[in-house]
């Protein structure tokens, strides 16, 4: 009886670790494919745009 209990416990642990691995995959994959990753590009683009405008304004002020 004890052995069945121990084996069931290991099976339960396998379920736990299995879902933990799935959760890690899910989190990593979603963080890689989420729109937030595009934000970085958007921010970078708007920064270059801002720099370009600043440069243009400075030039026209002269």
């Amino acid at each position, binding site marked *: 009886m004890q052995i069945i209990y121990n084996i069931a416990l290991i099976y339960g642990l396998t379920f736990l670790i299995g879902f933990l691995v799935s959760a890690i995959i899910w989190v*990593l994959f979603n963080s890689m494919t989420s729109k937030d990753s595009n934000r970085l590009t958007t921010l970078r683009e708007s920064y270059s745009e801002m720099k370009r405008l600043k440069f243009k304004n400075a030039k026209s002020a002269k």
Partner: protein
Amino acid sequence: MEVLYKLFQGFSTLALSEPVVAFTRVGLILLGMLLVYLGRKGVLEPLLMIPMGLGMATINASIIFLPGGQQGNLFVDPLVTDINQLLDILQINFLQPIYTYMFSNGLIACFIFMGIGAMIDIGYILQRPFSSMLMALFAELGTFATVPIAMAMGLDLKEAASISMVGGADGPMVLYTSLVLSKHLFVPITVVAYLYLGLTYGGYPYLIRLLVPKRLRAIKVEHSKPAKPVSQGMKLGLAVVLCVILCFLFPVASPLFFSLFIGIAIRESGLTHIQNFIEGPLLYGSTFFLGSLLGILCEAHLLLNPKILVLLVLGIIALLFSGIGGIIGGYVMFFIKKGNFNPAIGIAGVSCVPSTAKVVQKEVSKVNPNAIVLPEALGANIMGVITTAIITGLFVTLIPLIK
């Protein structure tokens, strides 16, 4: 007469053996021939069964008298432990170097794992990791259910855990677990495991037909959300992270994790030359030598272990329970997805990559040629490899601690 005995040693060793050994040798020769036939017909996995069957038939026909009057062969001696004796044998038995340097240390299993890694696409498990994992976990039912049954049949816990790994249907894992937990049964357990892995190809279609009615087998899976595109860079990144995490969790199974994920990493890095080498010559060469060696290890003297019959029964129980468990997992997914899931896919959670996934697609196509379930089946299949590796790590670590 003595000259004839010396000349035709295959026959004379048969005539001078005990009746049990003689009958077993003849039986194994016939079984070997049958395996070649079934492999050729496609009933069993031909890649493994043809070299294995021929090896089995050959070794039992080529027993000779060794110096000292003992019976033996010129292929391999898996039982040798003395270093000096081993050095002698390495120069005589032609398959001994492959057994000693590749088989008994698990290297051949790792090569096969690299090949599997280079072949599989982890795209689906990245998109739907939970459903793939659920089916794979259910498909491990046989691995766990067989342990108490094996103990009731007279095996100790370590032996029971080793033979139960057959339920995971992953040859390299069985090889590795039995090497660590019960080295004395390593040869029979490995032979039984690979023999039965060939059977999944022939036996599981019947289990699917028995447990999943035609109406449900014909279901075409429709996904409500379109799948997100997965780039090669993402797959590579995730493979690296997963490998490191799994090795942190189970360092004992890290050679297997490394082998699997390096295959995936090479595939996703676009290293085509190395990928072609790993999934071609390395994988097929290893499978060929593994099959040949397994056949050669089926020598009557080696297999006449009193526990072999028990192992044969337990192997089939483990695979049967795992198949049933996988289909239960498929039904669980069917209810979770409110009918939009084909329960037959569950059996692909039994991680015999890619045989079980191919079996599922074949059975589904028979009832509905338009239903493509291969991506889902391969997802469960690959997760099955990961769960079996997790269980290997758990068994190797925890089983010795249980009293």
